[in-house]
C-alpha cells in the first residue's frame, strides 16, 4: 500500500465524494491491481470534473512513484487537441508540492528546453497532436525552423543565405533572420539531442530520388534559392517537403528523449487516430504509449459515439468506435474478441425480451459486458438513466404562431427559389426570417446575388419578390428604430418569451437569493434565466442575435412609449456620450460623485451589508432596509468632525463623495490613509485599462486618464484632512445608505471579501484596488447609451433633478446588486478554479472575471441591404450593421485566428455571468465540452438534432455543477436557515447553503446531489424549449427524439443501434421501456452503492424485477376496403383531371387493402 503525501490528501479533500471514489478506483486499477491496467479510461459525463480526477490520479501516482524511486524524475505528458486548453489545464493538473515549469507546447521545441527538463524532479509537458505529431506538409512555427537552423550540421548550412531562405517559410526574411540570431545568443541547445538529430539525418533521403541523401537536396535547394523568398509553387512544395521532413525527424528524436511515466490523453476522441493508425504521426505518438512501464490515462465524456442513427454517415460508427477504443485499452485481441461475443449475446437476449426465462440470460449478458468494461474504464453519469434526468428536466410548451405576413414571405421565397432553380425553401423559411438579408455563405444567397446583377434575370427576381417587401429589412426603418416584425413563427414565439419577461429591463439576472423585497414582480423576476439557443443553420444565430438585440435596445430607448426618438446609427451613438465620465472644466474635476460610486468604502461595506437582513421568512422591503441604514449612518455621520446640521438651502454637495472617505478615516485612519497614499493610485484603482474610453467618446476628448488622475488627487486631498466642507445636504444619509447597499465599489468590495476570507479583508489595499477595478466595469456599463435611456426613464420623474449617478444607485438597490455580486463571486471561485488558493489570488481572479464580463465589447454583425426596384434588385452598397449585445452569436468563426478565439472565450465568460448577453445562439459547435450553466437553465432547440445523444449533449451544457436552476432551488429551500456571518468561509452565504443542502440530502446519494441535481416544489428546472409550428414535421421529430432518449442506452455496443431502438419502441410500452431501461443500464460508476426500490427492499443494480415481459402487439391500423373506395370517389370529385395520377397513387394502397381485407 502507498501513503499519500499531505499535499495529495489536501487536494483529494477538495474533491466531491464520487470524484474521490473515481481517483481511488482508477489508481488502484492502474497501479495496485495485479496485473495492473496499463491503460485506463475515465469517461465521466461532461461537467463532472474529469480534470480534477486526472489531477488526483497524477498526485497519487506521483506519490507512489516517488516512494519506489525517490531520485527518479517523473514526466507527465499531457496531450489534448487545443493548445489553449492545454495551457489552462496543465496548471490545474499539477497539485503536487513541486512546481512545474512552463514547457514547450510543441515537441520540436524540446531541444531548447530539455536541459531544464532533466533537472526537474517532475515535468508536466503538454502537446497538441496537430502541432507535435502530425508534421506532414506543415512548416511549423518560425521558432521551430529557427531552432532547426542551429541543429543542422554545419556542412548543411554553409550557404547561410540560402539556408535561411529555405527555412524562412512565409515569414518575413529579415524578421526570421533576427529570430535565428536571437536564438543563438540565448544560448544552450541540448547537445545530446543535437547529436541524435544529426545522426538520424544521415539516413534521410530526398523525395524525388529515393537514394539521394536529404543533405544533397537541402544544399542544392539552398544554393538555388540564394536570397530569394518569392518561391514559385514548385519551389514551395520542395521547401515544404524538406522542412516537414526535418521537423518529423526532430520530433522522433525528441519523443525518444522523453521518459514518460504517465500520459494523459484529454478528449482523445478528437484525435483517436493517434491510438490506432499506422501513419507517421500515430507511430510517433505510439512511441509514447509503448514506453516501458508507462501508464496511459484517457479522458473523454464521449470516448465513442454513443449512438448512431441510420441516416448518419458511417452507420456503424458507434460499434466501430467502441471496439477500437476497447481494443486500445485492453491491449489484448483475445479479450476484445471475448467482449465482442458478450455484446452479441446481449443483442440476442434483447431481441428475445418477451420469452420465458429470458431474465437471467439478459442480465448475465449485461453483467459480462459490465465486468469487462469496468476493468479498463469508469464512468459517472448525472443520474441520467431516465429521460428527465432525475426530475431536473422539463419540456416547456412553446408553440410558434404564424402571422399572415410569414406566409407571404414563404410564397415569395418559393418564387425566388424557382427562379434560381433551387429546391424547396421550407426548412430555411421555418428557421429564420429576413433570409435574403442575413444569409451569408448559402448557395441560395450566392445565386440570388449573382442573378440580381444580371439585367434580365434581375427583372425576373423583381417579379418573384413581389410582396416580399415586409420580409426585407429597410435601412430607413432600422436606422429609425422602427418595429421590425419577427417575421418568423419561431422567432416570434421566442421574442415573446424573452421580452414577455421584460428581460430588457434587467442589466443583470436577478439573484437567486435576494436579500430584501423589491418591487411587485420580484417573484416573477426570479424566474428569469438566460437562454442558450442551438441551431444547425449558420444563418439562425446571426439573425436572432441581431434582431433580439435590436428589439431590446429599442425598448430600452422607449421608442414609441414616450421615449426620445432615437436614431440607430453609429453617429447617433457617438453623440450619446456616457454621463458618468471624468472631465475637467475650469481646472476642476467635474465628476467627483462618480468617483464616489467607484470608491471601495470599507466602513460602508461593514455597516450597510444587506445580507444581514436576508431572511426569506419575513423579508424587509427595499425601503425598510434603506430607512434602517439611514438611521445607522446618520449616527455615524453626526460623529464626524466638521459635520454640521444639514441644509436644504445651500448644501455642500461634496459631502456625497467625501463622506465615505471621511467615515473610513474616522473608522480606521491607518487603513484609509495608506490606501490613499499608494503610488500610482489612479492606475491601481481602475486597473491597467487602456480602453476605458467608452465607445462613443471621440479622440478630441481630454485624455480620460489625466482627468481621472485629477479626480483621484482631489479625493486624496480630502482623505489627508484639512478640507473643510459646508453644510451637508439633507439627503446625505439616504445617499450613503444607497451607496452602502449598491455603490459599485462597496458592493464589489464586499462580494470579493466574502469569498476570500470574510469582511475583515475589506481594509486590505490589494482587495480594495481590485474592487475599484470591478466598479469601473459598472461605470462602463452604466455609460451605455441604451442603459442611460432605460435608467433615466425609470427614475427621472418630471421636475426631479436627480443626477444620473444617483439614479444608477437607485437602480442597483432596487435590483439587489449586492446579492447578485455575492452569488457571482461564489460562481467565479469555482469557475476560475481558485478555491482554496491564497486570498490575494482569489480576489484578483474573481475581480478579473467580473471585470471581463462587464467589459465585453459589443460586436457588430452585417446584414445585406436588399432593395427591390422596378428594373432590378440591388444589394448593398453598404451593409446594415446590427449590434449584438443582449443576444450574441457563438461558434460561427471559421478561422483559428487568435482574435476570434479570444472573442469566443470572452463571450462565453460574459454569458456565464449575470450580465449581458442574456441569449447565446450557437450553431452546434457549442454542444461539446463548453459550460453555459452559470446563469442559464433553459435550452432552446431551434432545430432538432437527429440523434438523441446530441439532444442530451446540448442540454448537458447547462445541467452542470451548481447550475442556475440548482442555485435557485437551494436558495429557496435553505435561504431561511442562513446565519449572518462576516468571517471565514461562512461569510459566503452560498457555501453555507450548499453545506446545509449536502447535510440534508438522503444518505445513500452521492455528491451529485445537491451540486448537480437539486429539485424543490415549485422550483426551477432545466428547461427544454422547442419552438415549432403545430402539426409540423418538427413536432413529430421532437416526439420521436424524446422517446428514443429513453431507450438508446439499451442499444449500447450494438451495431445498427437504430434498428434495435425502433424495435424496442415498437414492442414495449412507455412504462415498460422506462423500467427496462433502468434495469438494463450498464453501471460503470466507480463503486456500487445499494439502492432501495419503492418497497424498501434492497435491490442490486441491474437486478431484474417485474413479473412478465410481455410483448405488446401494435394496434391494428388502416382503413377498411369500403372506405378506400369512397376515398377514391372523393378524389375524383376533387381532381378529375388528375384521375390517371391518382390511380397511380392508390395502386399500392389498393394492394394493402386487399391484403387487409383478406385477413
Amino acid at each position, binding site marked *: 500500500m502507498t501513503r499519500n503525501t499531505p499535499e495529495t490528501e489536501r487536494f483529494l479533500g477538495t474533491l466531491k465524494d464520487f470524484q474521490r471514489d473515481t481517483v481511488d478506483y482508477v489508481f488502484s486499477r492502474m497501479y495496485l491491481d495485479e496485473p495492473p491496467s496499463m491503460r485506463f479510461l475515465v469517461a465521466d459525463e461532461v461537467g463532472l470534473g474529469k480534470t480534477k480526477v486526472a489531477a488526483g490520479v497524477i498526485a497519487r501516482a506521483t506519490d507512489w512513484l516517488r516512494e519506489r524511486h525517490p531520485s527518479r524524475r517523473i514526466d507527465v505528458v499531457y496531450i489534448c487537441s487545443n493548445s489553449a486548453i492545454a495551457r489552462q489545464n496543465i496548471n490545474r493538473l499539477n497539485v503536487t508540492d513541486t512546481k512545474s515549469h512552463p514547457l514547450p507546447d510543441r515537441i520540436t521545441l524540446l531541444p531548447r528546453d530539455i536541459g531544464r527538463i532533466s533537472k526537474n524532479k517532475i515535468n508536466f509537458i503538454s502537446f497538441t497532436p496537430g502541432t507535435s505529431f502530425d508534421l506532414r506538409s506543415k512548416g511549423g512555427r518560425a521558432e521551430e525552423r529557427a531552432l532547426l537552423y542551429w541543429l543542422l550540421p554545419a556542412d548543411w548550412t554553409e550557404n547561410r543565405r540560402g539556408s535561411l531562405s529555405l527555412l524562412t517559410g512565409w515569414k518575413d526574411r529579415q524578421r526570421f533572420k533576427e529570430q535565428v540570431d536571437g536564438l543563438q545568443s540565448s544560448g544552450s541547445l541540448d547537445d545530446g539531442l543535437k547529436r541524435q538529430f544529426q545522426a538520424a539525418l544521415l539516413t534521410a533521403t530526398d523525395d524525388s530520388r529515393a537514394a539521394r541523401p536529404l543533405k544533397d537536396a537541402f544544399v542544392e535547394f539552398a544554393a538555388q534559392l540564394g536570397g530569394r523568398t518569392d518561391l514559385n509553387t514548385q519551389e514551395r512544395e520542395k521547401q515544404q517537403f524538406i522542412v516537414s521532413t526535418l521537423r518529423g525527424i526532430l520530433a522522433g528524436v525528441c519523443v525518444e528523449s522523453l521518459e514518460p511515466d504517465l500520459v494523459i490523453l484529454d478528449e482523445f476522441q478528437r484525435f483517436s487516430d493517434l491510438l490506432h493508425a499506422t501513419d507517421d504521426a500515430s507511430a510517433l505518438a505510439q512511441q509514447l504509449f509503448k514506453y516501458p512501464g508507462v501508464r496511459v490515462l484517457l479522458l473523454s465524456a464521449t470516448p465513442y459515439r454513443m449512438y448512431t442513427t441510420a441516416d448518419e454517415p458511417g452507420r456503424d460508427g458507434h460499434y466501430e468506435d467502441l471496439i477500437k477504443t476497447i481494443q486500445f485499452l485492453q491491449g489484448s485481441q483475445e479479450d476484445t474478441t471475448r467482449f465482442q461475443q458478450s455484446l452479441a449475446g446481449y443483442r440476442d437476449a434483447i431481441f428475445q425480451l418477451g420469452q420465458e426465462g429470458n431474465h437471467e440470460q439478459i442480465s448475465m449478458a449485461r453483467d459480462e459486458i459490465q465486468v469487462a468494461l469496468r476493468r479498463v474504464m469508469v464512468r459517472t453519469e448525472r443520474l441520467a438513466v431516465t429521460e428527465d434526468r432525475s426530475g431536473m428536466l422539463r419540456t416547456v410548451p412553446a408553440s410558434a404562431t404564424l402571422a399572415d405576413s410569414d*406566409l407571404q414571405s414563404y410564397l415569395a421565397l418559393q418564387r425566388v427559389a424557382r427562379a434560381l432553380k433551387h429546391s424547396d425553401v421550407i426548412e430555411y423559411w421555418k428557421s429564420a426570417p429576413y433570409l435574403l438579408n442575413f444569409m451569408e455563405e448559402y448557395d441560395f444567397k450566392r445565386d440570388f446575388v449573382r442573378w440580381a446583377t444580371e439585367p434580365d434575370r434581375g427583372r425576373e427576381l423583381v417579379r418573384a419578390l413581389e410582396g416580399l417587401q415586409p420580409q426585407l429589412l429597410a435601412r430607413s426603418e432600422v436606422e429609425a428604430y422602427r418595429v421590425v416584425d419577427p417575421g418568423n413563427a419561431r422567432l416570434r414565439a421566442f421574442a415573446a418569451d424573452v421580452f414577455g419577461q421584460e428581460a430588457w429591463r434587467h442589466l443583470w439576472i436577478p439573484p437567486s437569493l435576494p436579500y430584501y423585497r423589491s418591487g411587485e414582480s420580484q417573484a416573477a423576476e426570479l424566474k428569469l434565466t438566460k437562454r442558450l439557443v442551438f441551431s444547425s443553420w449558420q444563418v439562425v444565430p446571426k439573425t436572432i442575435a441581431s434582431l433580439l438585440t435590436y428589439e431590446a435596445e429599442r425598448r430600452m430607448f422607449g421608442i414609441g412609449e414616450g421615449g426620445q426618438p432615437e436614431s440607430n446609427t453609429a453617429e447617433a451613438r457617438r453623440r450619446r456620450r456616457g454621463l458618468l465620465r471624468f472631465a475637467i472644466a475650469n481646472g476642476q474635476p467635474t465628476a467627483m460623485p462618480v468617483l464616489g460610486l467607484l470608491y471601495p468604502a470599507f466602513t460602508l461595506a461593514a455597516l450597510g451589508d444587506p445580507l444581514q437582513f436576508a431572511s426569506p421568512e419575513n423579508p424587509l422591503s427595499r425601503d425598510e432596509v434603506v430607512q434602517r441604514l439611514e438611521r445607522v449612518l446618520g449616527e455615524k455621520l453626526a460623529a464626524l468632525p466638521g459635520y454640521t446640521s444639514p441644509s436644504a438651502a445651500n448644501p455642500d454637495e461634496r459631502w456625497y463623495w467625501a463622506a465615505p472617505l471621511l467615515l473610513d478615516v474616522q473608522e480606521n485612519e491607518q487603513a484609509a490613509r495608506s490606501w490613499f497614499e499608494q503610488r500610482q493610485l489612479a492606475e491601481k484603482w481602475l486597473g491597467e485599462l487602456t480602453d476605458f474610453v467608452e465607445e462613443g467618446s471621440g479622440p478630441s476628448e481630454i485624455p480620460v486618464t489625466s482627468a481621472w488622475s485629477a479626480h483621484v488627487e482631489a479625493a486624496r486631498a480630502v482623505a489627508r484632512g484639512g478640507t473643510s466642507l459646508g453644510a451637508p445636504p439633507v439627503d446625505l444619509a439616504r445617499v450613503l445608505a444607497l451607496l452602502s447597499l449598491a455603490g459599485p465599489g462597496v458592493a464589489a468590495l464586499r462580494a470579493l471579501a466574502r469569498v476570500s476570507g470574510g469582511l475583515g479583508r475589506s481594509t486590505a489595499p490589494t482587495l480594495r484596488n481590485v474592487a475599484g477595478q470591478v466598479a469601473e466595469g459598472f461605470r462602463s456599463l452604466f455609460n451605455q447609451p441604451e442603459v442611460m435611456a432605460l435608467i433615466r426613464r425609470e427614475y427621472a420623474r418630471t421636475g426631479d433633478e436627480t443626477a444620473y449617478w444617483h439614479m444608477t444607485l437607485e437602480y442597483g438597490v432596487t435590483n439587489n446588486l449586492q446579492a447578485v455580486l455575492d452569488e457571482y463571486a461564489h460562481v467565479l471561485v469555482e469557475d476560475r478554479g481558485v478555491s482554496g488558493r491564497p486570498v490575494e489570488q482569489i480576489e484578483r481572479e474573481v475581480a478579473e472575471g467580473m471585470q471581463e464580463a462587464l467589459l465585453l465589447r459589443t460586436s457588430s454583425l452585417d446584414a445585406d441591404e436588399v432593395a427591390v426596384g422596378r428594373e432590378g434588385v440591388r444589394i448593398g452598397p453598404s451593409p446594415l450593421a446590427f449590434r449584438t449585445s443582449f443576444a450574441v452569436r457563438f461558434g460561427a468563426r471559421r478561422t483559428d485566428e487568435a482574435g476570434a478565439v479570444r472573442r469566443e472565450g470572452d463571450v462565453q465568460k460574459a454569458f456565464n455571468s449575470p450580465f449581458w448577453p442574456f441569449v447565446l445562439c450557437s450553431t452546434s459547435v457549442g454542444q461539446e465540452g463548453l459550460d453555459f450553466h452559470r446563469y442559464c437553465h433553459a435550452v432552446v432547440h431551434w432545430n432538432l438534432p437527429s440523434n438523441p445523444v446530441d439532444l442530451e449533449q446540448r442540454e448537458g451544457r447547462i445541467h452542470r455543477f451548481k447550475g442556475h436552476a440548482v442555485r435557485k432551488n437551494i436558495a429557496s429551500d435553505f435561504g431561511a436557515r442562513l446565519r449572518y456571518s462576516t468571517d471565514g468561509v461562512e461569510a459566503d452565504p452560498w457555501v453555507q447553503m450548499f453545506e446545509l443542502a449536502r447535510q440534508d440530502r438522503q444518505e445513500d446519494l452521492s455528491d451529485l446531489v445537491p451540486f448537480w441535481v437539486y429539485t424543490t416544489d415549485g422550483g426551477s428546472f432545466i428547461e427544454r424549449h422547442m419552438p415549432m409550428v403545430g402539426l*409540423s414535421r418538427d413536432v413529430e421529430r421532437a416526439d420521436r427524439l424524446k422517446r428514443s432518449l429513453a431507450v438508446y442506452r439499451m442499444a449500447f455496443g450494438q451495431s445498427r443501434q437504430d434498428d434495435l431502438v425502433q424495435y424496442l419502441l415498437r414492442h414495449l*410500452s412507455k412504462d415498460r421501456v422506462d423500467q427496462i431501461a433502468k434495469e438494463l443500464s450498464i453501471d460503470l460508476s466507480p463503486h456500487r452503492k445499494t439502492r432501495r426500490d419503492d418497497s424498501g427492499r434492497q435491490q442490486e443494480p441491474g437486478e431484474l424485477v417485474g413479473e412478465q415481459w410481455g410483448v405488446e402487439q401494435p394496434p391494428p391500423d388502416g382503413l377498411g376496403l369500403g372506405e378506400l373506395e*369512397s376515398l377514391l370517389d*372523393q378524389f375524383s370529385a376533387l381532381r378529375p383531371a388528375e384521375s390517371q395520377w391518382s390511380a397511380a*397513387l392508390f395502386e399500392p394502397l389498393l394492394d394493402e387493402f386487399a391484403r387487409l381485407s383478406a385477413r
Partner: protein
Amino acid sequence: LSPEPPGAALARRPSGLTACFTLKERLAAEPEEESVAAETADAIELSDLHAKLYVTESGSEAHVWTGSANATTAAFENNVEFMVELKGPRKRFGINALMEPEKGEVRFINLLEPADAAVASESPSPAVEELERLLEVRARISGARLKVRVTPASDGGFDLVLASSGEVNLQLGRGVAVTCWPCTLSSGAAVAVRTSTDQVLARFPSISLAAVTAFVAFRVSGQAGGEKLQIEFVLNLPLDGAPDGRKEQVLRSIVQDRSRMLKFLWLLLADELADLPRELVGGGSAAGQGAEVGTIPAIGGLFEMLLRTLDRAPERLDYLNGLMADIRKDATQPDLLPAGFDDIWLPIWRERERTRVPRS
C-alpha cells in the same frame, strides 16, 4: 389480372428493343459436358424460372445483377427488392460474353431461344388467343366513353345507370360475356352488360346514397378448351346527376374520427406516395410495420404539406375549405380536426384568399 402468356406480351414489343429471347422450355445437357446437372438429370426444367438477370457494362467492367426486381418502375423506385450483384471483367461477364455463342462453352445464350421464333414455331395456344380477345374487349370498353347516370328512385334510393353517350359496339364475339357492378357494392350485384344499340348498358335500381359512385368494376369472361378465363378491371367514369349531399354523406362515412380525418387530409394533399407518412401507407410486408406503441397519429408534416399546397396548387385549398365548412356544419360531429389545426389553417387560408387575384 391473369398473367399474360409471353407470346401476348411480345406481340406488343416496345420500340427500342433490339432482340427478344425467351427461356428454352427444357435445357438439354450438352452431351460432351460433364456437368453436375448432367449427372443428376438429363434435362433441366426452365419453364417456371422466375429469376431476373441484368447485365451492364462500364469501361472494362461488367455488372451482373440477379434477384427479385422486375424491369418495372415499381421495382426500381418503390419496392423492396433483393438483388445480388456480381462484378467482373467485361471479357468474361459482359453482354457479348453472355450473349455470343462459343463453341465448347455453355453460355447464357445457350439457355435462350429467340422469342419471335418461339411464337412462330409454336402455333398459339387456344387460351392465349382467347385472352387476347378478352383484352381487346377491355380496350373497347375503356374507349367507349361511358358514364354513370344517377336518378332518384321512388323508394328514396337512387337508380344508377351505366350509359354510353353514343352508339357502342363492343363486338363481344362468341362465348364472351361482360358483367359490371358499382365498386361500392359487392360483385354479387353484378349484372350483364347489354350490348344492344340501346344507350343503357346496365342498370342498378334503388341503391343507397352511399353506394352511388363513379367507380365501376367490369368482368370480361370467356372460354378456352373447356377452361374459363376472365379479366377484371375498374373504370372511373363521369358521374351525371349525382344527388346533393352525396359528398357530405360519403364524407361522413369516411371521416368518423380524428385519425381518419387526418388520413383523409393527407390523401387529399399528397402529391406523391412518398409524401405520405409511413404509418399511413402501411407498406407491403406484414412484419414490423405497425406504428410505434403510443405514437401520436400522423400529424407531423401536415403543416408543411398545407404550405406546399398553398404554393403549388392553391385551388385544392378551396376544396379543403368547403370540407371544413361541411364538417363544422354538423354539430353532432365531435371535433374532428386535430388540436391547433386552426392556428395553421387560418393564416394559410387567408393567404389563399388574398392571393386569389382574378388574372385578366
